[in-house]
């Protein structure tokens, strides 16, 4: 299935033929349409949750995506054809996400869609795009999007999966801090998938999983759960929740003195979350991340991204989710370049062939589920020795990209 460019009625040849009429059209309202047709920019829809609690991350995603667009355009685009980003607010709501995806496809006539931050919005957008044959590159974590039921050949997943993230963190933590592992988990897919990943990785180390205590989403008080965790006397407590849930849980676990005898671990430590909750709550906590600017000390492409971002946005650093926005947009643009076209099938083939290193070391999309195979960074929150206010984590380990750390194509239900 192929996607038509923005102005399907007007071809390049038609334009030349119409050149004589140009003088007339130049003064008419049609002028604008024609001018746009000539350039026919590559349009990338970008729904992210600009309003709501993750507004900061979402704005960072937009900033990073704009950087990728600016670089592409500065480099001459696709044979002179420029790209543009069509940003929409998904309000962190899957219904709004699906509506925006429909708007982007039906009325904005975008070529590709990149975006989302919440797993459920991502799945809703994917459901819309795959039905309409539009390539979607998701930049939010989810295990479900790789599974055969949700996946389609139009689906790409630039973000890590919970299985990969939790596995990497587990493989680092379990040999070092002990075998008795307790879980505190947000009661939704993200949390469950993380716990599954930790338990799977733990099998190799013979861990003894204690209870998995599940709390409702958006819990503001964990005090009722903490005494029970204390009573279990675990070596490691894995807190699998996100955003504000994570900040409050870590804060209250600190208040209850859990850190004295227990190593606290989170699958993902959010850069902006750490800044919001402060050093005390996160102190000593170990977790994973897809990106942290400090990686720039070891990885050349990360350093380059930091510098380019800092130049454009007043010396700030790109956040984890922001950097994924950069990669999500850039992969599609580079693939279009390689394909020499924005035609869907050609771009898919080019994406599948892509070996890239844009911000965190080498990556590529696995054939069966279009999952980006990538490295995972293990980080620990700093309390002292900060170089600057952004210097909040220490990169303590890097797990190299390896397909073996993903769920197998078979497990996901993809027939070979």
């Amino acid at each position, binding site marked *: 299935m192929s996607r038509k460019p923005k102005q399907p009625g007007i071809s390049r040849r038609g334009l030349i033929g119409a050149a004589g009429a140009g003088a007339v059209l130049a003064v008419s309202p049609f002028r604008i349409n024609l001018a746009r047709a000539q350039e026919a920019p590559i349009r990338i829809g970008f729904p992210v949750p*600009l*309003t709501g609690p993750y*507004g900061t991350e979402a704005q960072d995603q937009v900033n990073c995506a704009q950087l990728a667009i600016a670089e592409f355009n500065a480099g001459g685009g696709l044979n002179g054809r420029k790209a543009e980003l069509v940003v929409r*607010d998904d*309000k962190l*709501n*899957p*219904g709004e996400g*699906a*509506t925006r995806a*429909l*708007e982007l496809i*039906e*009325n*904005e006539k975008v070529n590709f869609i990149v975006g989302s931050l919440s*797993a*459920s919005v991502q*799945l*809703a957008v*994917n*459901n*819309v795009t795959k*039905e*309409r044959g539009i390539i979607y590159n998701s930049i939010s974590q*989810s295990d*479900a999007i790789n599974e055969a*039921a*949700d996946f389609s050949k139009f689906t790409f997943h630039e973000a890590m999966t919970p299985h990969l993230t939790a596995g990497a963190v587990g493989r680092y933590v379990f040999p070092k801090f002990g075998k008795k592992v307790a879980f505190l988990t947000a009661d*939704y*897919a*993200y949390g469950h998938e993380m716990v599954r990943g930790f338990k799977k990785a733990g099998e190799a180390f013979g861990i003894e999983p204690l209870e998995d205590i599940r709390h409702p*989403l958006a819990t503001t008080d964990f005090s009722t759960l903490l005494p029970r965790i204390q009573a279990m006397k675990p070596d490691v407590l894995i807190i699998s929740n996100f955003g504000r849930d994570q900040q409050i849980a870590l804060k209250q676990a600190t208040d209850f003195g859990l850190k004295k005898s227990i190593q606290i671990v989170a699958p993902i430590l959010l850069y902006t979350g750490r800044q919001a909750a402060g050093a005390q709550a996160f102190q000593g906590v170990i977790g994973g991340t897809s990106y942290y600017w400090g990686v720039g000390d070891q990885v050349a492409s990360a350093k380059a991204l930091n510098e380019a971002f800092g130049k454009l946005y007043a010396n700030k650093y790109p956040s984890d989710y922001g950097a994924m926005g950069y990669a999500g947009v850039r992969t599609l643009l580079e693939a279009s370049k390689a394909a020499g076209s924005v035609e869907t099938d050609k771009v898919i083939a080019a994406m599948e062939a892509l070996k890239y290193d844009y911000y965190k070391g080498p990556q590529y999309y696995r054939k069966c589920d279009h999952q980006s195979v990538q490295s995972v960074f293990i980080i620990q929150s700093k309390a002292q020795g900060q170089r600057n206010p952004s210097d909040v984590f220490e990169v303590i380990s890097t797990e190299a990209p390896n397909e073996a750390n993903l769920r197998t194509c078979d497990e996901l239900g993809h027939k070979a």
Partner: protein
Amino acid sequence: MNQASQATLARARDANLDWRELATRYRVLLVSAFLLAFPLVMPFTALAINILIYGLYALGFNLLFGYLGLLSFGHAALLGAGAYFCGIAIVHFGMPWFAAIAIGVLGGVITAAAIGALATRTRGIYFAMVTLALSQCVYYLFYQAVDWTGGENGLRGINVREIGIFGISFDFINPMTRYYVVAGFVILALIVLSRILASPFGAVIEAVRENEERARASGYNVTLVRLITFILSGAFCGLAGALYALQLSTVPIEIMHYETSGLAVMMCLLGGMGTFFGPFVGAAVFLMLENLVSLWTVHWQLIVGAVFMICVLFFPRGIWGTLTMRGKS
């Protein structure tokens, strides 16, 4: 007075018939004509469809709030049940789209019957709170039934590519097809509502709202009237939910969140409660405002909240209510 002068008088009276009365007389026809042209003036089709769906949802709510005077904070459960029932019928049972919509309506009816049976025993502010509490319980039920509903990830895969109407197959991916199918159901719902309001039962609803004691004294079972109205309201909301599922091809759990219940109240009040077109006007104004302002600033909630407050303070009859009442009182 002779016959001729009487005829003249009648004609004069006809001429005096203002647009409001005409609008009321031909309301279904008027709305149908408007709906046909509506998507042409909208910024994008998905918004036009959303306005229809939320308008229908607000209409179902209005039947209870505007006509019967019961403020419910649990209508999200009715909308959500309609959407989930329809979605599950398609995803898990492979039902045709038409049957799935019927199942969606049934979902709204069943949920309304369950919530209503308990809630109609209470009154006033307690009714609002009981409906809120029960709808939260329904939310939780659907949230936990992950195998059926997809839980927090939402129910995906309600993908209807084409639909057959009287043997002719239409491309359901095409936004205009979707719009006109939805519009068709909305018109159907308007006709049904119009009939209900004009029926003897409609008169009973009004009697209960105006004076509960007198209605009871007149021999009406007030609790039963409330329950039946609640269930009818559930049928409209269930239909809206089913259309929602077909339009977005997913059902997010957020549809059952209490904020969705608040949305019905907002739209209904904005448009004019207890008026026939109010809910649609409210839905249209609210969604267009939200769309417009959120393209311009991320602080759209400030504007929406302020507009809402202004409406409460200065236009308590809502937009449609204010338009139609001016000069009458």
